[in-house]
C-alpha cells in the first residue's frame, strides 16, 4: 500500500505522537520521584505521620504514572531503527552512545531500585528504603540528561566528523556532546519545567482536598511543598528559557525567526504579540508588536539586528543548495506562544498561591492557622472570602495540566522548528526514514500504537482519579514499625507482604 504522502510523513506523525505522549509522563516522573523522596526524608527525620501518609499518597500516584513512562519509553528506544533506519545508520556512531549510556547507567538504576522501593516497605530498614527512592530519582535525572544530550546533538551537532567513505557521522568528542551549551541549557530548561509540572500537579490535588476540608494535615503540607516547587521551578524555567532562546538565536536563527513570524530581518526587531500571515507570500497581514523586545530576547540589547525567515532561507539556499528551509511557520509561532503562555500562567498561579498561603511573613497573627486547619488565603491583611477562596482552589485544580500542555508545545516547537532538518545542517528529515519499510507497515504501527496509547490514557487517568479521590491511606502498625534487618523480619514466617501485586 502506497499513499500519496511523502515517505517521511507517516513516520513523523508516529514519532510525534509517541514522543509527545511519552513526555506527558516523563516530567511528572522526574519531579514526583524527587518530591516523594523529599517527603519520605521528612518522615525519616521527623517521624511525623503526616509525612509518611503524604509519601504513600504521592508515591502511589508516582507509580501509576511511571508505569506508563517506562512502557512508552521502550518504543522510543526501538523506533529509530524501525522507522528511521537511514537516520540510525548515519548517526548511530554519535547518537547511539548517549542512548546506550542511558540504558546501562540510568535505566538499570531506575528500574531496579523502583522494584526495591515498591516491595521493600517490609523488607528494608527505613534508611535503606529511603535511599532506594533517591536512587530512583537520580536515575530519572540521569536518564533525561543523556536523552537531552542526544537531542541537543540533533539541534546543534558538535564533536563529530563526516566519514565520506562510510557515508556517516562519526564521534570525535563525546565529552563535548555531553557538555555543549545546547545540552546544558536544554537540561536546565527541561528539569525546571519538570518541577513546575510536578508542583502544579501537587498543588491542584491538594487544592481539591482542601476545598472539601479533607485530609488537611497531609494536604496542607503538600500544598506548600507544591507551591514552593512551582515558584522555584517556574522561575528557573523562565530563566533557562531565556538563555536557551539566546543559544537558539545563535545556532538556529530560522527556528527563532519562525517563532516570531519575523519574515524579514529588522534592526531593532519587535516582539510579536499576535500575527496572522500568508505563509506562501512570506509576510504577515496582521501584526501586533512590541518594538525592540525581540532584539533584547535574542541579544540582550534593544536595537540589534535579528535576521528574518526570508533572509535565513536565502542564506541556507546559498549554503546547502536550492530548496525550502522554512519550518511550518504557524506551528512554530503558536507552539512558542502556547509553551510560554501555559507555562507562565501556571507559574503565576503558583507565585500567587505562595503569597496567599504565607505562614508568617507580613501575615497578621490572627490569620495564622494550625496544622489541622485549612490555610486562610490572605491577599493583604484580611483572608479572601469563601467565594474567592473557592475560586483559587478551583483554578489550581483546573490548571494543573497547564505545564503538561506547555511541555508538549515546547517539544513540538523545538522539533518542528528545526525542520526540514533532522540533524541541523547535516541531514534532512526526508533522508532519514527507513527505505525498506512500506507505508502500509508504518500506517499499521501508527494506528496500533495510537489506539493502545489512547486506551491506556483513559485507563491511567481514571486510575489516577480514583486514587486522588481516595486520599492518603491510613497507616498500619507495620507502616510505623519498619524492619531493622535487610530481608525483613523473618520471625513470623506467614506474615502477609506489605505490598503485593
Amino acid at each position, binding site marked *: 500500500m502506497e499513499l500519496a504522502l511523502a515517505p517521511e510523513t507517516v513516520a513523523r506523525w508516529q514519532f510525534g505522537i509517541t514522543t509527545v505522549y511519552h513526555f506527558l509522563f516523563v516530567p511528572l516522573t522526574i519531579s514526583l520521584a524527587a518530591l516523594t523522596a523529599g517527603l519520605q526524608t521528612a518522615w525519616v527525620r521527623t517521624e511525623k505521620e503526616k509525612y509518611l501518609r503524604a509519601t504513600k499518597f504521592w508515591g502511589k500516584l508516582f507509580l501509576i504514572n511511571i508505569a506508563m513512562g517506562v512502557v512508552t519509553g*521502550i518504543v522510543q528506544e526501538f523506533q*529509530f531503527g524501525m522507522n528511521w533506519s537511514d537516520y540510525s545508520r548515519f548517526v548511530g*556512531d554519535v547518537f547511539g*552512545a548517549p542512548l546506550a549510556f542511558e540504558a546501562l547507567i540510568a535505566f*538499570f538504576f531506575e528500574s531496579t531500585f523502583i*522494584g526495591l522501593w515498591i516491595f521493600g516497605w517490609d523488607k528494608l530498614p527505613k534508611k535503606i528504603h529511603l535511599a532506594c527512592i533517591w536512587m530512583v530519582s537520580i536515575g530519572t535525572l540521569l536518564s533525561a540528561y543523556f536523552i537531552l544530550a542526544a537531542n541537543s546533538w540533533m539541534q546543534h551537532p558538535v564533536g563529530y566528523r563526516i566519514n565520506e567513505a562510510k557515508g556517516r557521522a562519526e*564521534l570525535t568528542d563525546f565529552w563535548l556532546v555531553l557538555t555543549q551549551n545546547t545540552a546544558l541549557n536544554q537540561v536546565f530548561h527541561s528539569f525546571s519545567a519538570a518541577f513546575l509540572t510536578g508542583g502544579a500537579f501537587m498543588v491542584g490535588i491538594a487544592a481539591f482536598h482542601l476545598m472539601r476540608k479533607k485530609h488537611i494535615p497531609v494536604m496542607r503540607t503538600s500544598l506548600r511543598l507544591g507551591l514552593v516547587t512551582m515558584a522555584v521551578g517556574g522561575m528557573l524555567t523562565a530563566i533557562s528559557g531565556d538563555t536557551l532562546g539566546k543559544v537558539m538565536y545563535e545556532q538556529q536563527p530560522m527556528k527563532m525567526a519562525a517563532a516570531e513570524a519575523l519574515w524579514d530581518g529588522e534592526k531593532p526587531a519587535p516582539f510579536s504579540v499576535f500575527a496572522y500571515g500568508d505563509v506562501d507570500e512570506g509576510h504577515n497581514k496582521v501584526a501586533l508588536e512590541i518594538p525592540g523586545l525581540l532584539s533584547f530576547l535574542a541579544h540582550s540589547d534593544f536595537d540589534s539586528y535579528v535576521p528574518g525567515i526570508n533572509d535565513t532561507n536565502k542564506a541556507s539556499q546559498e549554503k546547502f543548495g536550492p530548496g525550502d528551509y522554512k519550518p511550518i511557520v504557524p506551528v512554530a509561532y503558536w507552539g512558542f506562544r502556547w509553551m510560554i503562555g501555559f507555562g507562565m500562567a501556571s507559574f503565576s498561579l503558583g507565585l500567587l498561591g505562595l503569597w496567599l498561603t504565607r505562614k508568617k511573613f507580613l501575615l497578621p497573627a490572627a490569620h495564622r492557622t494550625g496544622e489541622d486547619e485549612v490555610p486562610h488565603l490572605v491577599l493583604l491583611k484580611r483572608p479572601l472570602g469563601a467565594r474567592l477562596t473557592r475560586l483559587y482552589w478551583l483554578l489550581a485544580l483546573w490548571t494543573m495540566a497547564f505545564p503538561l500542555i506547555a511541555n508538549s508545545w515546547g517539544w513540538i516547537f523545538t522539533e518542528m522548528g528545526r525542520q526540514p532538518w533532522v540533524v541541523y545542517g547535516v541531514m534532512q528529515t526526508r533522508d532519514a526514514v527507513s527505505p525498506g*519499510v512500506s507505508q502500509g507497515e508504518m500506517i499499521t*504501527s501508527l494506528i496500533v500504537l495510537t489506539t493502545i496509547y489512547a486506551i491506556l490514557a483513559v485507563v491511567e487517568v481514571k486510575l489516577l482519579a480514583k486514587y486522588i479521590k481516595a486520599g492518603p491511606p491510613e497507616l498500619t502498625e507495620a507502616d510505623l514499625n519498619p524492619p531493622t534487618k535487610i530481608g525483613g523480619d523473618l520471625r513470623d514466617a506467614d506474615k502477609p507482604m506489605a505490598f503485593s*501485586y
Partner: protein
Amino acid sequence: MELHDVWFVLIAVLWTGYFFLEGFDFGIGVLTKLLARNRAEKRVLINTIGPVWDGNEVWLLSAGGATFAAFPEWYATLFSGFYLPLLLILVCLILRGVAFEYRAKRPEEQWQRNWENAIFWTSLLPAFLWGVAFGNIVRGVKIDQDMEYVGSLWDLLNPYALLGGLVTLTLFTFHGTVFAALKTVGDIRVRARKLALGLGLVTAALALLFLLWTQIENGDGASLVALVVAVAALVAAIGANQAGREGWAFALSGLTIVAAVTMLFLTLFPNVMPSSLDDGWSLTVTNASSSPYTLKIMTWCAVIATPVVMLYQAWTYWVFRKRIGTQHIAEAAH
C-alpha cells in the same frame, strides 16, 4: 581481539542476560494459566517476579541501545527489517508492564481478569517471537547490497525460525517453572516441580532438534561444545528438579539458556546478520560496527557499569529471597 569483537561479545552478554532473567519472567506469565489453579495462586506467581521484572527488562533496552551505538547498521537493518514482529513484541511489552502495575489497583473482577489475560498473552508471544527473530538472524535473511532487508513477513515465518520460537517458548516456560518451585511455598511449589518434568522433556526434545539443525547448517567445533553444554545442562536441570534440588535446577536451566545463546552467537560470528542472497552482502562485525573511538568509550561504560548493575540486581534478589505462598498475599486495600 579488536574492539568490534569485544562488542560482539558484549552484545551477546546483554542478550544472554536478558533471556536468562526475562526468560523466567515470561515463563511465570505463561504459568499463570498453566500452573495456577485460582486467583490467589496467580498472584503468588506474579509476586515472585514483582520486585524484579522491571529491572530484568532493562537488559533488553541495553541490548537495543548498545546495538545502536556499537553496530548501527545491525540495529537499523534488524529493527526496520523485522518490523511487524518487533511491533508485536513492543505492544506486548507495553501492555505487560502496565498489567503488572495496574492489575491489583482496582477490585473489580473483570478488571483483574483482563489484566491477567494480558499477562499471559504478553508473556507467551514475546517468548515465542524472540526465538523466531534469533532463528532468522542465525539462518540469514534476504539482505541486499545496501544492507536493507528485502524479504517479506512470510519469509520470517520459516520452519527453522518457528522451531526456534517453540524452543524459546518452552525453554523459558521450563525456566519459569523451576523458578516458581524455587520461590514459592505450599501446594503450588509441589505442582511446579511435577510440571517441570514434563515441560523439561518437551523442551529437551525441541531444543536438541533446533540446536542440531543449527550445528549442521552453521556449526563448528566451538558451537558443538556449547550445544553439548546446553543439552547436558538441561538434562541435569530436569534431574536436579526430580531430586528436589530447586536451586540447582534453576541454575542449570539458566546455564542451558546461557549455553544456547552462546551457541547461536558462535555460529553467527563474524557475521552479525548474514544475507541469504549473497555472502558478500552480509552484515559483519567489521562493516556494521561503529568507529574505534565510539567503541572505546562504550567499552569503558560497559566494563564499569555492567558489573555494578549485576551487583545491585543480585542484591535485589537477596533482599527478596523469601519464598512466598498464598498466605503472604494480603487482600489488597483499595
